[in-house]
């Protein structure tokens, strides 16, 4: 089939994206299509007959590039070139050009076909890609340098370790080895717990793992144990590295040594604790001292009020009796005079007794009482004491009933036993009603002697019983009855000197029974001892 040349011509003339035209053998334009017009800016009538060198830059013309192109095409049959071309308006574009040598049937050159494409955009894109690549390369290099710098700085300044997600050490730096005293070889592949000090509560360690396993950064202060068993403190930041699934695949631990600071802190805490302890001790001592002082002060005020009352009552009797003696000057009033003189004597005795109590107590408190054991008859002593107090009893019309059991021969300090009995019997009389009966029982058994004195008096209120032997103590129901509150305290101290015991059974408004118990024969070593 013969090709329809006309159809080709139409097709070529209407191609818009390619400049297709024909040159004569010298390079003059002989045909022009729409693509050529669009790319180069010349209309057909403007360009036909003109030499194709108008499409080249001055530099290319000087280099005779147009001629060389044509010669190449002539020689090779076809030649491709890329380069800058000039439009009618003088602007440049990057062109891809194909020359084809046209020949007749005999092989004689008739001209050249030229196809030109504007590939400026492609060229621009390539340039951009190249520029970007260069930039990327620069940046990558910069980043790599920076990362290395960072790593260097980190290694210089910090203790660095990397573990896998299970806590197995995969990297440590020199600082890590230095502080932990392990070598790199000893650490790599080991569980990170190798430096665990067991100092921290489990909750803290659990919190650490939960935090980093969830991809969060953990910060805190940890105490670690070095290879040699010493401890060091590190301020720790653990950064999890997250994989594309969002799971941590390794942990970077950056630490700094804060051992000195921690030691200082611990020392401060220790000092504080010591201080607190000291303060507590001092406070306790002070409180105790204050309490003692308060006790002494209470004692003093109790003493003052007691002494005041106990002294003022006999002094009252003395003062009034003295005044009454003055009234009875006549010889026939001698009986009344004598009564008052006797009253004065009795009151002075009363005052002397109180003073004696004080002196006894003072001696007892200073352990200045000597124990002088002698043989004597306890039964006889009880009767003597009863006789001594008969005056008091007579006044209140009281009776005493003495019952002995066993033998009365004992070895003890007679003076002390006498004082004890006198004290207890006086109390029984004082706190018993008029016409009351007092029973004294003695007993001796297995080298033990006991004396009990029973009264049917006011009794001791139960709440007062525990304090009964305290100095200056007076029970509620005895407040208005004369007494120093010293007697039972003295008795108790005397009983201690005798290595004996005293106890009582009492009920308010029913009466009391006081019982003393001591050895029938006192320890001879005690003889002459001052009773400490």
């Amino acid at each position, binding site marked *: 089939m013969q090709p329809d040349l006309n159809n080709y011509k139409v097709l070529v003339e209407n191609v818009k994206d390619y400049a297709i035209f024909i040159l004569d053998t010298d390079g003059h334009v002989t045909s022009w299509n729409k693509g050529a017009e669009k790319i180069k800016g010349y209309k057909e009538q403007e360009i036909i007959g003109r030499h194709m060198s108008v499409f080249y830059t001055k530099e290319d013309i000087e280099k005779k590039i147009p001629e060389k192109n044509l010669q190449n095409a002539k020689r090779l049959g076809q030649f491709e070139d890329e380069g800058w071309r000039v439009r009618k308006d003088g602007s440049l574009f990057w062109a891809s050009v194909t020359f084809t040598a046209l020949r007749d049937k005999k092989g004689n050159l008739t001209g050249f076909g030229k196809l030109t494409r504007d590939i400026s955009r492609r060229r621009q894109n390539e340039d951009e890609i190249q520029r970007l690549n260069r930039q990327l390369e620069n940046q990558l290099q910069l980043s790599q340098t920076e990362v290395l710098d960072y790593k260097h700085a980190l290694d210089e300044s910090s203790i660095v370790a990397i573990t896998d997600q299970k806590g197995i050490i995969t990297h440590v730096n020199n600082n890590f080895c230095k502080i932990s005293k392990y070598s790199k070889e000893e650490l790599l592949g080991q569980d990170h717990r190798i430096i665990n000090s067991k100092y921290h509560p489990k909750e803290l360690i659990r919190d650490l793992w939960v935090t980093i396993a969830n991809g969060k950064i953990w910060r805190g202060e940890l105490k670690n144990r070095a290879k040699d068993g010493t401890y060091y403190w590190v301020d720790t930041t653990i950064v999890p590295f997250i994989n594309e699934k969002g799971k941590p695949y390794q942990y970077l631990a950056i630490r700094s040594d804060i051992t000195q600071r921690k030691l200082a802190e611990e020392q401060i805490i220790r000092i504080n604790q010591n201080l607190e302890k000291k303060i507590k001790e001092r406070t306790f001592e002070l409180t105790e001292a204050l309490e003692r002082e308060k006790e002494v002060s209470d004692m003093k005020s109790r003493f003052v*009020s007691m002494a*005041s009352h106990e002294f*003022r009552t006999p002094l*009252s*009797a003395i*003062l*009034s009796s003295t*005044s009454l003696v003055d009234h009875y000057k006549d010889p026939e009033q001698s009986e009344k005079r004598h009564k*008052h003189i006797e*009253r004065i004597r009795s009151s002075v005795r009363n005052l002397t007794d109180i003073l004696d109590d004080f002196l006894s107590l003072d001696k007892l408190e200073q352990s200045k009482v000597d124990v002088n054991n002698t043989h004597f008859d306890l039964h006889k002593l009880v009767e003597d004491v009863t006789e001594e107090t008969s005056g008091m009893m007579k006044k209140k019309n009281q009776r005493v009933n003495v019952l002995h059991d066993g033998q009365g021969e004992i070895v003890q300090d007679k003076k002390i036993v006498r004082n004890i009995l006198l004290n207890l019997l006086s109390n029984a009389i004082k706190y018993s009603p008029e016409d009351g009966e007092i029973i004294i029982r003695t007993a001796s058994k297995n080298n033990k002697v006991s004396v009990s004195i029973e009264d049917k008096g006011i009794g001791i209120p139960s709440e007062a019983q525990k304090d009964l032997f305290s100095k200056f103590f007076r029970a509620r129901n005895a407040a208005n009855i004369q007494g120093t509150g010293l007697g039972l305290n003295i008795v108790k101290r005397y009983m201690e000197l005798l290595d004996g015991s005293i106890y009582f059974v009492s009920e308010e408004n029913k009466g009391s029974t006081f019982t003393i118990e001591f050895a029938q024969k006192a320890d001879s070593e005690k003889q002459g001892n001052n009773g400490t």
Partner: protein
Amino acid sequence: MKKILVIEDNTEIRENTVEMLELNNYKVFSAKNGNIGFQLAKKNKPDVILCDMMMPDTDGREFLQLAKNHVIVRKIPLIFFSAGSPLPDIKKKLIKEADDFLEKPFSEEDLLHAIERALKKQMINF
């Protein structure tokens, strides 16, 4: 003759006080506790009552309560005496409610002065 009531548990002091007053021409009644004293006061209507504050049975405070609630006895001048000094606050309050106060030991002169002061007051009271 003016009548005086002495309430005091201590035998010596009670007897001595009565004796001193009798020697100074007073008619004297005496009691050893507040309760007996109050009965005597109601019965004999004394011009002055002397009462000890500390007594084993009914004491001065209880006597004062009884006296305050009696239409006649409450008008009789009351002199407290006490051996307690320094005085606890409770006693100081009690003394304020009485007309006078004598501190033990007191002299015959102190006693007579106190009685005379009380008698003057009694005259105003009636």
